[in-house]
């Protein structure tokens, strides 16, 4: 479990970083290293060069830009989890981050790194999906904004180009929305069997907009449109929650792996959806 030889560079700016990545197609950006380094130790990833973007000051900023919370890609998960600004503007994020690994992992892991890694069970991907968050991706020649649905392609695959890095992540501030998050795991701190991030906006007592994202149930984190539909234009009640949970479970076809069979992941999604929605009940 030792990596093959590789070079290590720590550029001073993001522009320098993407130039280095563009110059060598086998180079990879290194942020918190919580996924890439184990993959290198297993020789599943064999980058020629690690371009360390984890300490670029311009990538670790955290500020409010109008009705968007902007979090630098290299901001550490633990810093975001404990930020008063984040708690105030985007309370789903700290609620979700508490479930990401253990705090030692979150002390290293970054926001952009988790989104770029695109683990199908990543809590941060679920939050981004439920909030319709966007990432800003920079290459040596261009900068573009990609929404979460367009970013996540397949297990551990995104639509980012090899010479692109995420520089910032943009989270809509929804002061009137309620949020919920629940996941079912075999062991605390572990990747969940399934989980649901939910963002619901109300018009009076009725649900005006519902965005639910499921994790652990498909090749990528994905929205649960059937469940969202069930909730619309009615009060959030025990009945509507049960129907939404059933709709969520019925809408997925989870893969089988060593941790659980598909039916168990479906049951976990049903339970997680129910619990996430229960957290925002009025009555």
């Amino acid at each position: 479990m030792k990596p093959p030889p590789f070079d290590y560079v720590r550029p001073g700016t993001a522009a320098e970083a993407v130039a280095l990545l563009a110059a060598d197609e086998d180079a990879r950006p290194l942020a918190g290293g919580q996924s890439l380094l184990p993959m290198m130790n297993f020789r599943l990833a064999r980058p020629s060069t690690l371009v360390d973007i984890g300490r670029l000051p311009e990538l670790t900023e955290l500020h409010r830009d109008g009705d968007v919370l902007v979090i630098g890609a290299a901001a550490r998960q633990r810093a975001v989890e404990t930020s008063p600004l984040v708690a105030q503007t985007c309370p789903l994020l700290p609620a979700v981050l508490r479930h990401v690994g253990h705090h030692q992992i979150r002390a290293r892991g970054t926001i952009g790194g988790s989104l770029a890694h695109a683990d199908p069970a990543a809590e941060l991907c679920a939050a981004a999906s439920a909030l319709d968050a966007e990432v800003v991706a920079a290459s040596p020649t261009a900068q573009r904004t990609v929404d979460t649905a367009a970013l996540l392609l397949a297990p551990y695959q995104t639509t980012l180009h090899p010479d692109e890095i995420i520089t910032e992540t943009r989270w809509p501030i929804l002061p009137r929305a309620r949020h919920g998050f629940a996941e079912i795991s075999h062991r605390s701190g572990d990747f969940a069997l399934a989980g649901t991030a939910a963002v619901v906006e109300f018009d009076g007592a009725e649900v005006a907009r519902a965005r639910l994202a499921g994790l652990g149930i498909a090749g990528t984190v994905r929205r649960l449109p059937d469940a969202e539909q069930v909730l619309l234009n009615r009060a959030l009640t025990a009945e509507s929650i049960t129907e939404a949970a059933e709709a969520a479970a019925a809408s997925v076809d989870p893969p089988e792996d060593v941790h659980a069979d598909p039916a168990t992941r479906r049951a976990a999604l049903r339970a997680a959806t129910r619990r996430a929605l229960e957290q925002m009940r009025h009555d």
Partner: protein
Amino acid sequence: MQARYGARPTLLGARTPRVEDDRLLAGRGRYIADVALPGMVEAAFVRSDVPHARVRGVDATAARESPGVRAVFAGSDLDLRAVPDRMPWVRPVQHFPLARDRVRYVGCPLAVVVADDRYLAEDAAELVEADLELLPTVGTAEDALSADAPLLYPEWGDNLLLSVEGDGGEVEAAFEQLRTVSGTFTTRRHTAAPLEGRGVVAEFRDDRLTVWTSTQAAFVVRAMLSAVLGLPERDIRVITPDVGGGFGQKNEIYPEEYLVPWLAMRLRRPVRWIEDRHEHLIAATHARDTSIELSAAVRDDGTIAALRGRVRTDLGSGEIFPAGYGPSLVAVGSLCGPYRIPHQAISVQGVVTNKTPTGGYRGFGGPEGTFAIERLVDKIGRELGIDPLDLRRRMILAPHDLPYETAAGARLESGTHREAFERAVQLGERMLTEERENAGPGAALGVGYATYVEGVASTTFSITGTWSSQDSADVRFDADGGVTVAVGISAMGQGAHTTVATLVAEALAIPMEQVRVVMGDTDTAPFGLGSWASRSTLVAGGAIARAAEVLRRKGTDIAAHLLEASPDDLELVEGRFRVRGSPGSAVSWSQVAQSALNRTFELPPGVEPGLEARATYEPPGLDHVPRPDGKMNAAASYTNATHAAVVRVDTATGVVEVVRYAVVHDCGRVINPLTVTGQIHGGVAQGIGGALHEQLPYEDGQPLATTFTEYVLPSAREIPPMIVEELGGPAPETPFGVKGAGEAGIIGPPAAIAGAVEDALAPLGVTGIDTTPLTPSVLRGLIEEARS
């Protein structure tokens, strides 16, 4: 041999902080990976990535050219002997440290690369090309026994490494007359997963081999190295550094432990190999993987007249010493529990498959056997409409039953079987009530129990064909009155230094601070078999008691001479020999030691200089081989306990949480409540892992759990608060009255937790939980089955 050497308070039973903790907890331990020698090079192994194949050749040409590589060897390059097979009663497994003609599991070492560092060695290992002719895979024990199964060892004619028939006329008679209740109870494959993996460092200098290895049994390693390498034992020194957990897994002797020393001899350079976690999960022994078919002949009142059944263990490839059938034999002995069951006839099958070899793991058959009998007793209760706790009360041994010989031949001289059971039930019911009060409506809570007896300080002859059960202590005074004690047992984090220091200090009436404990080095320790079978305190204690007796006698003679008193008038109090009735007239151990070691002209006539004693203790009354009737009293003593588990089951997802746990335990006299409780906490934690989380599944011979991502160990957050109570007092049959505590925690959890889950799910109609681990997938399936 208790604290009767004077009036001072005894050290036995005091909550003494562990003497090793300052070092170990502050990161100052010296583990195998901390051993660094000048000029040392590192080894990496090329392991089979297929489960079953003929080895046609290994091409290391490219690997030898790789930067920093010193050497590459394959099986055919080795000039050493096969690992000796000393058990005439099982099929012979001829295995070598590197596969020669066949690989039988994914992870089997095929070649070794030695390079300047581990990185370079792994770079080169990737370049080794093995030419393997694939053979059909034997995936499970059941597949292995089918008529057309491929054979791992074609010369055997089948895949049975061990097959023992249980028989008994009384058993057959009981089954003819009585009602039968049966079940099959399966404990799936998991592993010990100590915090520290394995590792070996070896150096060959001046015609002498020194081997540092993370083992529980340095002398056994030395003997096996001698046999495989062809060196006399005196030319081998085995040193055990600090060991970060052994759990029986490090009582096995592994291919790497022979090969790294061979490399050091061949290359004339120190060589180091440190196992990584991926290697650990495929190449360190697995455990359990045992299915027990068990039937009871049941009287009208539910009590069991006889047991009949078969223990079948999937041994993997069997290429390990000692082979993994030892736990199957112990499981047989544990099936009758602490119950008055007059007869049993249990057969044993050890089956080879294309998986990693199984070996010892804490509990060693006890968890598997206890799971089977406790589940079966619950089933009897259910089928006959008898409260399973009442049913146990009808069968469990009471004080007036002792001494008692179990149906398996174990002679129980002492114990608190009934008392421990009743107390645990009291605690369990109380914990359940408290949890129910705190839980919301609809929470599925349940309580379950497991009661058992556990043989400790067993013989190892029946699984090694070589060693029995003795151990030694060497107690030496220095001239300043301090003592160095060397013992044959071994430390792997369990507090052995503290226990030994306590016993020596107690026996010589000196402060613990004056005792230095030495172990784990074959050059300095007296011969001993190491630490396993919960034996250390009992066997080391026996040897220490004998050595101390010699020293006290000699000390008394010397002191009497110095005091011009009669030895009969002296008493040893707080490190001083004093004349009874005139405490002012006394000499200390250090004065006695100075006479013995320095001022030898002060010695009484006929007393030799020197103040040291070496003693060996062999537990009496053991059977080292089965008696003619097949029964066996294989252990020096037997502990007993009852565990109570309270669980909460999420019926929507199948996730189980153990919310409370209690252990009522009797290990005879408790030397130190802190270390005993610590052992039980750790054992219960591992037991929860095996009952709920851990498993090593295979698909087509490929292991699916090869990292800690797939192998789910419980974390601290999965471990509930625990109540640990110790019953009983000094056992009459052992030195210092001690039994053993190392494995007590792990035996109960599978049965107790399964019982608790079944209790929690009783309203849904879930019955017959007969397999662990109880993962969410398994439980959700059971719940759904019951609902439909």
